[in-house]
């Protein structure tokens, strides 16, 4: 059931078995795992069922390092959390991501990928991803776009399946189930302000909760799970300092350190030998059967080991010959989308939703040319001045006429037949696994929010290894594309000039309560239990010791399922 915490009288103490703080991807997954089980679960969600500005303001923080996204945008404080703007990309981490690599300081998980594999399969189902296939070979056999024909084994193609936009939001997907589960209570507008412990600081006894309306209450539970975010998890630990002045789990000054992102930047240009080189695989696209995929170029494991660099993924964004730009825009038109919808339905012998609208779009588009026909002619005849214009035009201009006269479906068909409009060049965007860096960190700042809690300061910092990895990946791409006759690469990221202002992250907040079996090197152990505290656990990407280059959602959902299993076993 959903409960508006603003209506709970102050000074009450609620009793439950498990208290989950946060209802984003991790928190909802945990609640889903406990739904219908013989255990009482309370979920404390800071926001409501939808966005509201007052709650959002609680996430405001200060950048004191590399420029980062506003923290009240990077975190979404309402039911569903950041799955409300999640892109739906799912890929498990690679085996190498879990290894302790001598060339990556502070790398290594307490376990290998095989430990997470069964949870990845369950996470896929939770995330609503229909196919269980991860292999690039499998998808390349089904896809309509080929991979670039690299000849060596230094580069690999990675395929990332994408959950459709209609199916990826956790809030609508799980709301009904969580609402109906008799053992679950989802408290909305309930902000955790502090976790209280016993005198020894080894057991959390209560969660102190405040609402923006002024009422405050407590939740007493046997087990507590922080599932707030990569920023809020460390913030809440640091704020809980009644018994431990440095904050809970922070006896070795680890809480908030190792903040990681997926630094992302256009770092180069690939000039293809053949202007009609197909790079459709590397943009988000649908296969003929309707699955959504996105391809990336990456360095093989062997190359990463040899070059001693971080995992790098390269996105290839086609920049078309300007003469074709008006036609390129046509590819994303509503009419072309309608045609594709009808064709997919035709192939699967179904009738799509909004059939009449799609049909009308297609027919209107296809009849656009009649505006340029001789009026009242017995047969469809283009106006003579148009024929003359076409006759005198060069090939690129003729394509522009196609777009001008024939709506958007004709140029899309032209593009399909020619297997792509000519490219001017391809922008190469690299996204790297950020090296774990203790100096990249979240701390409490002097400013306070409306609840009187210290706002955070984020000091996002990168290392020379991050930059070297980006540049070396481009160099390898340059050599491999040259060797295969695909084209030439220009690196636009200067080695000795620091990071450009255009550097951004991927909206992924990771690493700030990292996992390690050694309490001196991490905040949680292999079971996501906070070191030294018997009943406090953390869920979410803040426990990642390394970030890989894969999107974090599937992995954090896997870890949440694994944590749920651990607690079920522990609680009998």
């Amino acid at each position, binding site marked *: 059931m959903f409960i508006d915490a603003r209506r709970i009288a102050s000074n009450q103490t609620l009793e439950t078995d498990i208290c989950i703080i946060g209802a984003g991807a991790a928190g909802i997954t945990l609640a889903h795992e406990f739904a219908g089980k013989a255990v009482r679960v309370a979920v404390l969600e800071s926001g409501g069922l939808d966005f509201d500005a007052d709650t959002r303001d609680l996430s405001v923080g200060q950048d004191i390092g590399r420029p980062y996204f506003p923290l009240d945008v990077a975190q979404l404080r309402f039911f569903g959390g950041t799955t409300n703007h999640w892109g739906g990309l799912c890929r498990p981490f690679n085996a190498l991501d879990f290894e302790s690599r001598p060339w990556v300081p502070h790398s290594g998980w307490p376990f290998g990928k095989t430990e997470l594999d069964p949870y990845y399969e369950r996470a896929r189902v939770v995330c609503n991803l229909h196919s269980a296939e991860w292999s690039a070979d499998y998808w390349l056999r089904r896809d309509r776009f080929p991979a670039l024909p690299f000849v*060596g084994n230094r580069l690999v193609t990675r395929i990332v399946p994408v959950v459709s936009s209609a199916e990826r939001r956790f809030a609508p997907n799980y709301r009904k189930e969580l609402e109906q589960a008799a053992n679950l209570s989802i408290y909305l507008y309930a902000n955790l302000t502090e976790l209280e412990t016993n005198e020894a600081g080894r057991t959390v006894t209560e969660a102190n909760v405040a609402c923006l309306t002024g009422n405050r209450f407590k939740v007493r539970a046997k087990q507590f799970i922080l599932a707030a975010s990569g920023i809020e998890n460390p913030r809440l630990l640091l704020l809980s300092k009644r018994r431990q002045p440095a904050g809970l789990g922070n006896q070795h000054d680890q809480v908030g350190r190792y903040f990681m992102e997926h630094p992302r930047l256009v770092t*180069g*240009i690939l*000039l293809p*030998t053949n*202007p009609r080189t197909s790079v459709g695989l590397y943009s988000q696209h649908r296969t003929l059967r309707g699955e959504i995929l996105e391809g990336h170029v990456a360095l093989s494991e062997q190359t990463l080991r040899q070059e001693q660099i971080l995992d790098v993924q390269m996105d290839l964004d086609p920049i078309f010959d300007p003469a074709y730009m008006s036609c390129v825009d046509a590819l994303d038109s509503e009419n072309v989308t309608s045609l594709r919808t009808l064709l997919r339905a035709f192939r699967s012998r179904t009738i799509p939703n909004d059939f009449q609208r799609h049909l009308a779009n297609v027919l209107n588009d296809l009849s656009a040319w009649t505006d340029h026909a001789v009026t009242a002619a017995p047969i469809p005849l283009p106006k003579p001045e148009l024929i003359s214009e076409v006759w005198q035009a060069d090939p690129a201009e003729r394509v522009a006429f196609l777009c001008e006269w024939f709506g958007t479906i004709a140029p899309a068909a032209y593009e399909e037949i020619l297997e792509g409009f000519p490219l*001017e*060049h391809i922008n190469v965007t690299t996204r790297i696994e950020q090296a774990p860096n203790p100096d990249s960190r979240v701390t409490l700042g002097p400013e306070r929010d409306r609840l009187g809690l210290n706002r955070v300061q984020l000091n996002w910092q990168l290392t020379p290894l991050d930059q070297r990895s980006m540049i070396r990946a*481009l*160099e390898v791409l*340059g*050599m*491999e594309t*040259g*060797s*295969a*006759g695909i*084209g*030439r*690469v*220009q*690196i*636009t*990221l*200067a080695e000795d*000039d620091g990071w*450009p*202002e*255009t550097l951004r992250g991927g909206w992924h907040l990771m690493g700030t309560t990292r996992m390690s079996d050694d309490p001196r090197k991490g905040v949680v152990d292999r079971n996501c239990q906070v070191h030294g505290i018997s009943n406090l656990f953390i869920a979410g990407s803040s426990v990642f010791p390394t970030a890989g280059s894969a999107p974090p959602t599937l992995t954090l959902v896997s870890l949440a399922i694994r944590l749920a299993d651990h607690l079920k076993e522990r609680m009998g």
Partner: protein
Amino acid sequence: MRNATGMSRRKFLLLGAGIGIGGPLLAPHSLTWVASTWQDKGNTLQSRLLALFHHQPSARVIGNTYLQQFPQEANIRVLLKHIVADFSGGFSHSDDRLSSAADRELMGSLQRRIRRDFSEEKVVKLQGWILSATEARLCALAALA
């Protein structure tokens, strides 16, 4: 972001057209020219190689950049020696077989050499562009002509 290139992409595209980066290294229509001059016994290796460019001014821009970076190679003989050294056809720059080699053979050797440069990391970075050492030297040859 600082533009590390110093040379616009558009300009490089033009250069690419010149030395075949945007197309095959030895562009098809340059073959006609090579063929037409093939019977010229006074044709030197340098001029034969330069004939492979169909936009020599562009090649010279790249070549000058290369020579600024590697001034010790600002010598036609040195460049030729580097370019034909280790050709898969077993040529040397003074080898008679080179001057008597068919144009296709010469081009094939160059193309193989360039690809091998990339696979063996014999590359240079000129204003950010990763080029094979051989193709960069060919441009330098044009710059010195």
